[in-house]
């Protein structure tokens, strides 16, 4: 959120517990769009007192004595008229806050006591965006230090971790149009034709994905960082932190992912121990979470096709839900996950049960499979082991409305 053209009013809170203070702070930042910030008593232009506090009268007297010229706002469930104070009735809403702050500003502006920009610049108000609680000066760590084992018991904040932006990115939720734009189209397959559908396959072993997965396994087994060299850019795998480092954007990755690799390409794939010597060269923003990366890679490799190695005729199920907040979400992915977590279904059953396009089902299955979240059930046995399909729906139309709200918002 950008700071408005105005300087936020600086207010101090009294008669409120930590929880309420925090809520108030967030309320001012969020719904009130930063019209005011909460600061310490000594830095405030305005005092805000919860008049429903049992000792509100004492607090008010103390504040009047301490800073006689400072405007005071009282909050209460009851209508209060107390001389030389401003009043906001609970529950507090945005309009009330803005109105009262406006009144105070108008009353005091000629004297330029409050909202003085120079003063504000000296002590900048709290940023409107929530900040991560990072210490001010990140230590100049070599990237590899990040992966050193932390002492057991004590949890600490790793500053270097916080500089890695990629792994904290939220999920990208794709609509249908986005999906096609994202995955590209496979022009030689007609997904409407059921015969072609069954042959709409790709071989992960002949793609970058297959090599990445195998390199990842090796790195995990050996518990050390490895570098995968290819005809393309080197990929570094850090098993300890479950991260990769790659100097390529998604577009470039997508192009390479979609290629079927010939003899030349596969011949030049080499996995070597990673040389940590040039750690400083590696930009922090090029780290990615391993699972986020493999998931994307699998989607782009699949392009809506089914992975060879799985039997398209046999039911599949999910061992766990994917960590969707950190993954690219293709159309209907959450619904498919909910279904397949609870009960094994063949890919084509998913298509018909949920009325999802086969490309979406296949891409989703590819990505789950690549992360090791998916199994194929042999026969009835696994079906019995797996949980019952959910039958808890309370009110379909209500649930649908909530969804509509969440997706539309």
């Amino acid at each position, binding site marked *: 959120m950008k700071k408005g053209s105005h300087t936020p009013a600086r207010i101090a809170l009294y008669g409120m517990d930590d*929880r*309420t203070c*925090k*809520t*108030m702070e967030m*309320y001012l930042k969020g*719904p009130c769009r930063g019209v005011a910030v909460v600061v310490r008593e000594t830095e405030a232009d305005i005092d805000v007192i919860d*008049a*429903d*506090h*049992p000792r*509100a*009268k004492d607090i008010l007297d103390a504040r009047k004595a301490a800073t006689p010229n400072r405007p005071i706002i009282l909050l209460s*469930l*009851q209508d*209060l008229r107390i001389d030389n104070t401003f009043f906001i009735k*609970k*529950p*507090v809403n945005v309009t009330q806050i803005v109105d009262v702050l406006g009144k105070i500003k108008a009353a005091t502006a000629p004297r330029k006591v409050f909202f003085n920009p120079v003063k504000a610049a000296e002590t900048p108000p709290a940023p409107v965006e929530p900040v*991560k609680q990072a210490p001010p000066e990140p230590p100049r760590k070599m990237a590899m230090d990040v992966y050193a084992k*932390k002492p057991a018991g004590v*949890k600490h904040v790793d500053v270097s*971790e*916080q500089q890695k932006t990629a792994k*904290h990115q*939220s*999920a990208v*939720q794709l609509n249908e149009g986005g999906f096609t734009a994202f995955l590209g189209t496979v022009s030689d397959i007609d997904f409407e034709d059921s015969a072609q559908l069954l042959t709409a396959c790709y071989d992960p072993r002949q793609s970058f994905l297959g090599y990445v997965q195998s390199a990842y396994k090796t790195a995990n087994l050996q518990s050390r960082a490895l570098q995968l060299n290819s005809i393309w850019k080197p990929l570094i795998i850090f098993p300890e932190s*479950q991260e990769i480092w790659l100097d390529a954007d998604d577009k470039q990755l997508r192009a390479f992912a979609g290629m079927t690799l010939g003899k030349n390409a596969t011949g030049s794939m080499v996995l070597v121990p990673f040389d940590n010597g040039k750690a400083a060269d590696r930009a922090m923003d090029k780290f990615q979470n391993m699972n986020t990366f493999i998931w994307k890679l699998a989607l782009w490799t699949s392009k809506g096709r089914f992975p060879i190695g799985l039997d398209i005729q046999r039911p599949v199920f999910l*061992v*766990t*839900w994917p960590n*969707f*907040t*950190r993954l690219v979400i293709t159309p209907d992915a*959450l*619904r498919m*996950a*909910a279904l397949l*977590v609870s009960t094994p279904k063949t890919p084509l059953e998913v298509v018909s*049960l*949920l*009325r999802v396009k086969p490309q979406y089902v296949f891409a989703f299955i590819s990505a789950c499979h690549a992360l090791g979240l998916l199994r194929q059930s042999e026969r009835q046995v696994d079906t019995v082991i797996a*949980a019952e399909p*959910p039958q808890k*729906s*309370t*009110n*379909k139309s*209500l*649930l*649908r*409305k*909530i*969804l*509509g*709200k*969440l*997706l539309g*918002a």
Partner: protein
Amino acid sequence: MSQYKIIFTGPVGAGKTTAINSISDVPPVKTDAAASDMTKNRKSSTTVAMDYGVMNLAGGEKIHLYGTPGQERFDFMWDILTVGGIGLILLLDNTRADPFQDMKFFLDAFGKFINDTSVAIGVTQMDLSGKPTIDDYHAQLQTYGLKPPVFEVDAREKNDVSLLVQALLYSLDPGLAE
């Protein structure tokens, strides 16, 4: 009209207030009503400090979002709170000493409610502490025979909270389409 609710629970600092505010249409400031010397004429009443939010839905319906009070105690309030609840959002703070113990506590406390409805788990503060991992949570949940959605969630990110609630709804009924 019946009261439809989604309940947010979890230990203090897990992000309940923040999460509710990030998807609520009217983030309210919690109001405490204790006896005050300025409002003497008012009958003293006690309101339990509770997070509350609301999502306005199409057709004028509302879904109420309730956060359980901070204290880690199972009291009768929680039972009352869950009446009309369509599901539980459990938020866990990954920087706490033993998040698995927290998880067990809340899963037990809301056992019946979860059994009747559904639960989705958001692990917060993972940007501050990466361990335990989401996989570790799943492994732990497996020993309870549960397979709920477990997402890394930053309660300040509306998108994260929204996805968690979506997952809760689809868990109730995968057949739901928009």
